[in-house]
């Protein structure tokens, strides 16, 4: 009986708990690396916003690319979303979340721009009030 309880406790502990006791130095190094990459990408964004080196109309796209890269860095180094086996569900949920987020944002922009265009056209043909 004692044995089975022990066994139960052992079973109750997953891989992430043993990983949690991994070496302190590795943990600190991982956060520092994440911080360094995040600082570089933030600086790159602020640089892109001011510089004249990038073709003007392309600046928002450059900033968006830096933003997505930084979000990825945060996900991996701070939220620990990895490709590990105990992370499959998290990654799948994230993929679905990203899909919905992109649908909402780009769907809204697309539909509203279209509507705006058509309404402006309709207003031109309206009789003056």
């Amino acid at each position: 009986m004692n044995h089975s309880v022990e066994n139960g406790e052992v079973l109750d502990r997953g891989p992430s708990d043993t990983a949690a006791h991994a070496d302190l130095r590795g943990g600190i190094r991982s956060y520092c690396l994440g911080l360094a990459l995040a600082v570089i990408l933030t600086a790159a964004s602020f640089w892109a916003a001011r510089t004249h080196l990038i073709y003007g109309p392309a600046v928002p796209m450059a900033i968006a690319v830096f933003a997505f890269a930084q979000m990825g860095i945060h996900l991996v180094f701070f939220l620990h979303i990895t490709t590990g086996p105990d992370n499959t569900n998290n990654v799948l949920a994230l993929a679905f979340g990203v899909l919905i987020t992109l649908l909402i944002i780009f769907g809204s922009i697309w539909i509203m721009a279209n509507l705006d265009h058509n309404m402006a056209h309709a207003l031109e043909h309206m009789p003056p009030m």
Partner: protein
Amino acid sequence: MSHAVAHTQYATGRGEGGPASKRVIVGYGFWIFLLSDVIMFATLFATYAVLADSTAGGPSARQLFDTRSVALETACLLASSVTCGFASLAVERANQTWTQGLLLLTGLLGAAFLALELREFTSLVGRGAGPTRSAFLSAFFTLVGCHGVHITAGLLWLGTMMAQFLAKGFREDIRHRYLCFSLFWHALDIVWVAIFNLVYLVGINL
């Protein structure tokens, strides 16, 4: 024999590697909540993107946004995200001093962020660019204000966590609560990355 009994008794949902630990399940559940929160932010981002040009003759993003203040806010939030990560290393090692110190630092940096944001908001309202001025400003205050409200809630939660670590020690359930808090705090930093890039930096370039 007792081995087999143990298996049938404790092996609910057992796959290749055995059932997932409580920590993994708690993290997964909270992750689902965070994703729903992100989807709510996505609707606010979509609203802002649609209304960004609707200034109703009022000031535009280019005239209003102050890059220096945004850079400071970004630095505060990024630093607090890292100290929160360091705090989780201290929590794993049940080190009360480091946990409390790092969480206090996290909270102070979060409060500094909030103070800078409030200063920016009052300055905007003072210049006649409050949320009632135009659809652009309504959407801006809703989006950025909603993030600020999340940070405020996070600060309250952070204080609660510090008190619980002090009063109840490093119990398993308290550690799980802290795991949820750290996920929440890091996720808010990701939302801020989207805000400072796509609202502020793109805003001053359009």
